[in-house]
């Protein structure tokens, strides 16, 4: 077991698979349970009548999930500071009970878990508030914005024993699920290099709709790209569960945009390109860019025996290159979901998968796939990369927040 794997969240790495112990004389080996393998394989079927009562906070991104369609979930209450957004949540999830704030909602004893889709700089505070009130939590990305917040989240999670999941969409993009399977099956050979990128022109710009609301700056005004790294880092970490241990990051500026001259983050960079090193000695190139003529989230995985390339906004097709042939067809994974949830609602069809995984983790009383340790392993490297960019690309070490 790798040092960052808890007994509950033991990942079925290729090596872990082969180290399992033989049972009996049948030649069959009994392996430890793996949420990766089970969640990526068998067709979904209802195995429990248990209902998770969830409170949904944040009527922006928060309306794009499927809580009301999951057979094991009931939306107990919703909340947003803005009345129109509260109504939007009530309408989407057909929920009568609404609170004016998260702070009120988490006092409701009927609520088992809270879906926190508030603004990014408040994620850590809100997650901790929920856990301190005995609620399991799923939050939007990133999990946190500072190393101090990361440490505090870890302390609270381990003290309360509650479950946390980060709703990282790249984890359930179908290319990522496929890459995870290929890695488990050893078909990449050694996965020596991965490139990942998240391109979203306009984020952080002063004139962007998302940067201003009702005449006030939002949290996206001048947002440092590497403070939002998880769509990219997930393409490697969610596949191999390696940890990113060092980083050097270079930023580029947008000096003519007020968003990057005066912002809450003292951030001048609109694009950031980072080179990471993993704990297994693999390089990983990761871009997050707000001002580039490309769009979307994609990766390519290069192994010694196989390579896989995601489609891109430049028209690049999906290609899985195996030793003896290339495949251009990506499997679909709808069978992993309850029937009502089998439709695309954004981010590479990942939203219903995130919904299902969090609900089922609570129903089955297990850690979700993107648990707190995975979430911090996806988030913290970006925080350090951002610091590196402020130091002209100095290579910095990335602290671990895994179990000791």
């Amino acid at each position, binding site marked *: 077991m790798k040092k960052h794997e808890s007994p509950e969240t033991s990942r079925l790495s290729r090596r872990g698979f082969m180290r399992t112990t033989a049972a*009996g004389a*049948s*030649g069959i080996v009994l392996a430890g349970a793996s949420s990766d393998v089970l969640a990526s394989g068998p*067709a979904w*079927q209802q195995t429990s009548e248990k209902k998770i009562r969830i409170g949904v906070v944040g009527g922006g991104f928060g309306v794009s999930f499927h809580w009301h369609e999951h057979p094991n979930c009931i939306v107990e209450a919703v909340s947003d500071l803005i009345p129109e957004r509260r109504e939007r949540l009530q309408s989407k999830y057909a929920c009568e009970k609404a609170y004016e704030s998260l702070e009120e909602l988490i006092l409701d004893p009927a609520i088992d878990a809270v879906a926190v889709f508030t603004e990014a700089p408040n994620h850590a505070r809100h997650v901790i508030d929920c856990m301190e009130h005995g609620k399991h939590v799923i939050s939007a990305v990133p999990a946190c914005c500072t190393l101090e917040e990361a440490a505090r989240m870890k302390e609270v999670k381990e003290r309360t024993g509650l479950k946390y999941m980060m709703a990282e969409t790249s984890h359930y993009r179908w290319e990522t699920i496929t890459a995870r399977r290929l890695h488990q099956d050893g078909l990449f050979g050694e996965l020596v290099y991965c490139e990942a990128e998240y391109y979203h022109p306009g984020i952080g710009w002063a004139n962007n709709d998302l940067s201003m609301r009702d005449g006030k700056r939002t949290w996206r005004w001048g947002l440092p790209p590497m403070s939002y790294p998880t769509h990219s880092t997930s393409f490697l970490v969610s596949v191999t569960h390696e940890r990113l241990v060092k980083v050097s990051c270079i930023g580029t500026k947008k000096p003519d945009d007020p968003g990057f001259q005066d912002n809450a983050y003292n951030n001048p960079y609109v694009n950031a390109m980072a080179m990471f090193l993993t704990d297994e000695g693999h390089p990983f190139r990761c871009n997050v860019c707000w001002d580039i003529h490309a769009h979307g989230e994609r990766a390519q995985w290069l192994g010694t025996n196989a390579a896989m390339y995601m489609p891109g906004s430049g028209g690049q097709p999906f290609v899985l290159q195996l030793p003896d042939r290339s495949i251009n067809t990506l*499997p*679909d994974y709808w*069978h992993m979901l309850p029937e009502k949830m089998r439709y695309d609602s954004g*981010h*590479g069809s990942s939203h219903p998968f995130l919904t299902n995984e969090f609900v089922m983790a609570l129903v089955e009383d297990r850690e979700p796939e993107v648990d707190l340790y995975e979430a911090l392993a996806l988030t913290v490297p970006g925080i350090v990369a951002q610091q590196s960019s402020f130091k002209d690309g100095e290579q910095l070490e990335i602290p671990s927040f895994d179990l000791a």
Partner: protein
Amino acid sequence: MHFAATALTWIASAALAGADTPADAWQTAGEGAWQVLPGTPAVMWQGSPGVAASAVQTIPGTAAIVWRCFVEPAPTVDSAGIWFAATPDLASGYRLTLGGNPGLGGVQLHDASGTLLWEDKYAPWTYYTPYVLEGVAESGRVRVEVFRWDGATLEAQSDWIDAPGCAPDTMRACGLYAHGIARFYRWEPAVSPLSPIVADSPSKLRLVTSDDTEWTIIGPGEWKWMTPEKKILRQGADVFRSSVVNANLGGSEGTWRCRILLEKGAGGGGLILRTDPQIQTGFSIWLGGNHGAGSLMLYRIPDGQLWCGPQEQWHYDTEYILEGTVKDGKVSGKLMKADGTLVVESPQLDLLEKEKGLTGNLGLMTYIGKGRFWDFSDATRVSEAAATVEGPAASMLGSEWVVSGGVWTWHNEAILQNAREGLAAAVNKAVTGAKGVYSATITPQQDAQAVSLLFQVSPDMKEGFEIRLEKGLLLRTLSGRVLYEKPDFVWTGGTSYLVEGIVVTDRVSVRVSDPAGNVLLKTDDYYVSDTNNTRIGGIGFQTLNGTAEFINWAVRPLE
């Protein structure tokens, strides 16, 4: 073909069977590395690449055997499937597997000696996708079937196959087989099969696998008759290029013809003349060029293009007649509407000296996508029945517009929909974009039940979004999913509204303003598929049971 009720019953019990099977109930053979992953359901994983491995258990009873299992092959697997009605040492028995046609698919039934008993060579399957494989054994005969993961959609099925050595009362070993890496779950014996033998199983409709021995498939693809009558042949796979050639149709000179319909997303497809069994020679008369709005093309195989007609001559999901003629040292092609009206024809081009006097066969081909073909022969003429199939409605607004229903007219710079009853739509193919603001000023008249702005809409109106003023305001996808609804939004007949559909990559929103520019409604963003990031669409209008005026339509960049 669906057998949902049966499948649901089975799946409910199968999970328990799989989860409860102890590891030591299995006996293995071969060089595999089998592992059981506990859970609900348990997963059996054969993780050794390139080796053949079996794991079997003996099931109780003496009656006929039905054995089934989900099988999920890795992309490098040679074959994976199930054993049934076998002896524990696997000296006798039957093995149903996915495989046998590398890179393309295939389903095969072998006996324990390796003799191939039955095959559906072109049955498609996808790696990391679970399929239900089922074997049925009675005394002296066996049959097999493969289902999609829903346990209801039949992918392949054999008839009963004579198996003189099959003795289910004593051959009770059933299990799993993999040559390469594969996963298995929900294995179980059952009382009855998931499906009876059916006349229209995919295996019987699939070209070549059925008794259509005159056809040869070149490359990947799913060539299948659409009905047991075998009238319409469909290539149903999203593959780059796929062709078939018919050994019984052909000749040296003459006119060859087929009816063709290309499905949405296809890059092209058409007719191949005077070709050889491997399609290394001959000519293709095909619909190519712009996808969904392209040209008639004439190619020499393998050299390439001889002639290309104007674009915008063919469209998706529309029936056409393609015709190719080789006569007097010339080759030419012709595209007609379904009723035989000429759309465009090529000039008559000279054959090369070496081509004169050659003979060959008729073929069909698709390019990047799916298509349907029928009435293909060297003798077919336009049938009266087929001629009744209509192409797209002629546009009343000019070539930029695709119109369906209603009475549409120009009024200065505006267009009017004048019909008081029914559903009417008009989509502009020239004003297009991906992300951006799709806007128009819309004036519903007093009589209108509903008036809509369609944005990022495809010409066939299968993709895109609708802002619908009816009882309130509705934003929905053209596939019918409601993104936003405001039943108390009040609009008034005879009043003009600036209606804007805003596409921000994978998020869309709505803004409605009055004539003075006051914003009456602005929604939040709603997440949609991120295929929307780059999808090109146009702007259009729709009315229901009433009249309306539309003006100042535009697609402009995001503010």
